[in-house]
Structure formats: C-alpha cells, structure tokens
C-alpha cells in the first residue's frame, strides 16, 4: 500500500519531534557577550536553521515558496505592518528632517535652558537651550545611519566569513570558530569603552567600525550554522554528486536557503546596534557633539532628571520606539519564515 504524502490530518501532524541529542555547541564558548537582546537575535536565527521545508498543511496544489508564503503572512500581520510603517517613517525623516521641523538642532539659546513645552517648541528646551523637538527629529538620522551601516557591514563580513567557513569546513572553520570565541569573550560595552575612549573623531564612522569589528562573529556563527544545515540537504548532496562546482553550489543551492536566518538576525541586530550607539554615547565614548544623537541628549539630560525630565524622556522615547520597531520587524519576519510555529 502506498504511504500517502502528509495531508491535512491535524491529529497526525502533531509529531513535533524533538531533535535528539542536540549537543552543546562545538566551541569553547556558547553564549554571546552581547547580553540578552543579542542572544535573542542569535536564538531566533538558530530556530530558523532547522529545515523550513515541511509545511505539510497544504493539499496537493501549486508549490509555494518559503518567501512568497512568508510575504503573504507578513502582509496580514499587524505587528509587521506597524513596525514597517514606523521604520519607513524613520528613514524618511532621517533623509529629510526638514519635513517635520524647520529649526536647526544646533541653534540654541541659553536663556531658554531647561524650559518646558511652549508654542512652537512642543518638547521644550534642553540644558543648552536647544529645541528638544528639533534635536529629537535630527537624532533619527544619526541612529538610522549607525544602525543601517553597522548592520550592513556586520552582515556582509559575517556572512561571507561564516558562509565560507561552513562551506569549506576544515582548518579555516576551526580557526574562525576560535576567533569568534575570542570576540564573544569580550563584553561588548567594555570593548566599546576601551576602543572608543581614545578616538577623537566626531563622525559616526569609528562607532560603526567598532560595531562591525565586534559584531561580525555573531552573524558569522549564524551563517556558518545555516550553511552547514543547508549543505546537508538531500538536493545539495545530489547537486554535489552531479558534479556541480563549489561556487555554483554555494550561490545557487546553499546561499538562498541559508540567507533567511541571517536576515532575521540582522534585522533584530539593527535595533540593538542603535541601542548600543546610544549606550556608548551615554557613557561618553560614542558620538560626540556637535553630532546630534539621542544617546548624547539622554546623557546630557540625565543630571537634570529631577527638574527637567522632559529633556530626557523625548529622546529616550524616540530611541525606544525605534529599537522596538526593528526588533518587532525581525520578530515578525522570523515568525513568518518559521513554519514550525504556525
């Protein structure tokens, strides 16, 4: 009797088989030194490394791809829509801050220092008498620039190194694994303090450079893992047996399947990089004035938190919403790409 393909019997779909003997990670260290939110990202990626092919719940019919499926899910997910719109808005005001404000963030009047909300200046003034609303709007540009550039750098460097290590394995893989271990062992805020405390430039580039330097191992580990998983797929083995060349296999068969976890992790990481920039600026080693940054503003407002909390709350709120938007976006994309959780 032919064993029919899986069908819509919820009773028989319930076999959430636990992967047996999932051992501890192969390396000297398991966690990340980035703290919780980074671990969140890393774990979201790890769940995706498992085979995302078995949807099962689809009767015989047109084949659906993981991506078109995910996109259909995402459009109906309010979390995704809200966070995507928010991010769109943030990108818009980063490029054209004048859409929302006609003021100049560096145009300050000490006489108005610490004053609260008043007509034309809804968020009040900061300790130097600058308009908090204008500075909050302009702060988006810095945060988005740092977040996007750092993520692009990390994703590129990390996925190339991790992907190659996972694909070619052997000595390079072992070397890279040890190297990522070294980076994981250094607490990230600490690394930032040490490296950036001596930098005198007041552009965003040293901060971005630092994030790429300390952030790539995280993506590389994810990319390595998903490449190894993808490499074990039957169709990849088949392609290899048929004599496909290495670059062709990597680009055509493995990369498309390994890229999903990297995208999810990178999206969530983008949010955490923005938070990290603010944290470093708060500690006095990130960006420096006259760069307009939420972190700097929060930091400079913190001594006055008793008397003029508005100076802190507005940029802090903007920062939190921005980070939240990216993390929610990543979360929604992860859910959409992970059929197991449906």
């Amino acid at each position, binding site marked *: 009797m032919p064993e029919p393909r899986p069908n819509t019997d919820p009773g028989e779909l*319930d*076999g*959430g*088989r*636990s992967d047996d*003997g999932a*051992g*501890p990670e192969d*390396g*000297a*260290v*398991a*966690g*990340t*030194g*980035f*703290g*919780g*939110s980074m*671990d*969140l990202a890393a*774990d979201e990626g790890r*769940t995706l490394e498992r085979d995302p092919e078995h949807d099962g719940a689809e009767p015989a019919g047109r084949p659906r791809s993981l991506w078109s499926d995910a996109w259909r899910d995402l459009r109906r997910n309010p979390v995704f829509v809200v966070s995507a719109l928010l991010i769109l808005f943030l990108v818009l005001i980063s490029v054209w801050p004048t859409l929302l404000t006609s003021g100049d963030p560096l145009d300050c009047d000490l006489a108005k220092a610490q004053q609260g909300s008043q007509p034309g200046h809804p968020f009040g003034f900061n300790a130097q008498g600058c308009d908090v609303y204008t500075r909050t709007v302009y702060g988006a540009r810095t945060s988005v620039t740092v977040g996007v550039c750092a993520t692009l750098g990390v994703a590129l460097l990390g996925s190339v190194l991790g992907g190659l290590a996972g694909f070619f394995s052997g000595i390079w893989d072992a070397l890279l694994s*040890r*190297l990522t*271990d*070294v*980076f994981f*062992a*250094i*607490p990230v*805020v*600490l*690394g930032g*303090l*040490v*490296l950036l*405390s*001596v*930098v005198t430039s007041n552009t965003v580039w040293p901060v971005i450079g630092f994030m790429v330097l300390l952030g790539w191992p995280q993506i590389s580990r994810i990319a390595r893992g998903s490449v190894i998983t993808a490499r074990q797929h039957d169709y990849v083995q088949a392609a290899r047996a048929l004599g496909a060349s290495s670059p062709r296999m990597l680009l055509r068969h493995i990369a498309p399947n390994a890229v999903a976890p990297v995208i999810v992790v990178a999206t969530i990481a983008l*949010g955490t990089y923005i*938070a990290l920039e*603010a*944290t470093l600026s*708060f*500690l006095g080693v990130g960006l420096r004035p006259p760069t307009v940054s939420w972190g700097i503003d*929060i930091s400079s407002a*913190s001594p006055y*938190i*008793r008397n003029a*909390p508005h100076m*802190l709350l507005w940029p*802090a709120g903007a*920062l*939190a*919403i921005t*980070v*939240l938007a990216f*993390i929610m976006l990543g*979360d929604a994309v992860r859910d959409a790409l992970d059929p197991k959780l449906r």
Partner: protein
Amino acid sequence: MGRYVIRRLLQMIPVFVGATLLIFLMVNVMGDPIAGLCGERACDPATAARLKAEFGLDQPVWKQYLTYMGNVLTGDFGTAFNGQKVTELMATAFPVTIRLTLVAIVFEIVIGIVLGVVTGMRRGRPVDTGVLVATLVVISVPTFVTGLLLQLLLGVKWGWINPSVSSDATFGELIVPGLVLASVSLAYVTRLTRTSIAENRRSDYVRTAVAKGLPRRRVVSRHLLRNSLIPVVTFIGTDVGALMGGAIVTERIFNIHGVGYQLYQGILRQNTQTVVGFVTVLVLVFLAANLIVDLLYAVLDPRIRYA
C-alpha cells in the same frame, strides 16, 4: 568526562590568550598608557622616557604582553593609577559586582521562568500577548534608559529607594539595580522559556504522560518542565559572564563601586594594568561559566555524552 573537560580546558587557552591580547592591544596601541600618570599636565619628555622604561613600555608590545601575563599568572596584577594594587581594587570591587549579578540572576530565574511557563501554557491568550509585548518593550528600551527612569521614579519621585547605592552595596540596596541589570536578560529568559514550553507541550512524551493518566500538575512539573528548562538553564549560566561585564552601565547610573566602576575609571585614566587585569578576570569568569554550563548540560540531558 575527564577527557572532555581537559579538551575543553585546552580549547579555552587560545580563547583566553586571544581575548586578553586583544584588550591589551586595544589599550596599548590606541591609548598612551603613561598619559594619565603625570596628572593633568602632559609629561615632560624626560619623565615620560623614565616612566616608559620603568613600566617596560619601551619593549615591543608582544614582550610587554608576555611580561604582563607572566606577572598575572604569579598573582601580580600591577598597580592602579592611584598607586593601589590592582588586586586590592579587585578585592573591593568584585564582591559588589558579584552581589549585583546574584540579584540579577535571581530575578531572571524567578520572574523569567514563572512568566515563561505561564505564557507558554497559555499561548495565544491575552496574558501571553501581554507578556510578549512587555518583553519586547523591555528588550527595546536600552538598559541605561530603564535605569534612569527607575531611578527617577522609585528614587526621586516616590522615594522608595536611595537613588545612589552606598559603598556597602548591601543586597537590599542592589534590588533595583539588579532588576535593571537583569531586565533585558529577564525578558529573554521569559521568551526562551515560553518557546520551549510551548514546543515541548506538543511533544510526544507529554502526550504519553497524559495518556498514562498522570495528574496535570505531575505532567507539567515532572515531564514538561524538566525538559523545557534545559535551554533556559544553559542561557542563564552563560549570561553570568555577560552580566558581570555588562554591569558598567548599571553601576554608573546607580553609582555602585563595583567592577564596572573600576573599569570605567581605569579606561578614563588609561591605566593599562587596571583595565587588562579586570578584563582578564572577567574573561576567566566567562570561560568558567561556559564550561560549567556544558557540564551541567550533561547532567540535565542524559542524551548528551561527552567523549
């Protein structure tokens, strides 16, 4: 088992050397180690040369590193900017940070796991959605903002706590800072537990336990929890290192004189020996925590066998 531990210890050596070397290079190459030694003014060239010779700074960097590490291995971590021994600084700083970390871990375990179990068992219900949104918010708001806000509300506005922690840093004083330090990890533990519980709840062995006619309480506590908490315990274990290294922000906000405070001072004054010394110990703690977690894994999950 013994062989596994030895292999892991050997694997740790390059990581340890790499991490400390990296920090050593960062501090040495990027900064000017003697700049902080002459007070506010710049050192005059003669003094600078003398100091350099005295600290062995005229040697090549790799030799300096070897000398330093050699000293560290004999227990000599050097002197801090104010002439105090780094080991003395550690003796005062580490107990404080360890207490802070303990408080944070307790929060992670108690609140994180309870919330995770509750939401995992009620997936999709309002309570689940509420907690899930809350964890996202906590993860999104940077720790220093959470810390400042809690300090403002609890310390300044309502006067429940002292906004800054005294030099004793008792457990009582560290409750709120510990919560702040734990916040992000706490949210993560909640999510991890939730996912794990929800996944295992649909597993075959839980179905078997129900089919055996076990009371629901026993199914949950004996079969479901035991399996679901394996990844959670792993995470909390590895988080110990991250928490101690990440305490810089929390310690700064609440003015706690722990490891983060000393590191911050050391970095500001570019005191190589303080910074590298503390980082060395932190890296060791991190590596030890990882090893313990791996061994714990074998205890919790009998399927893991170390060869």
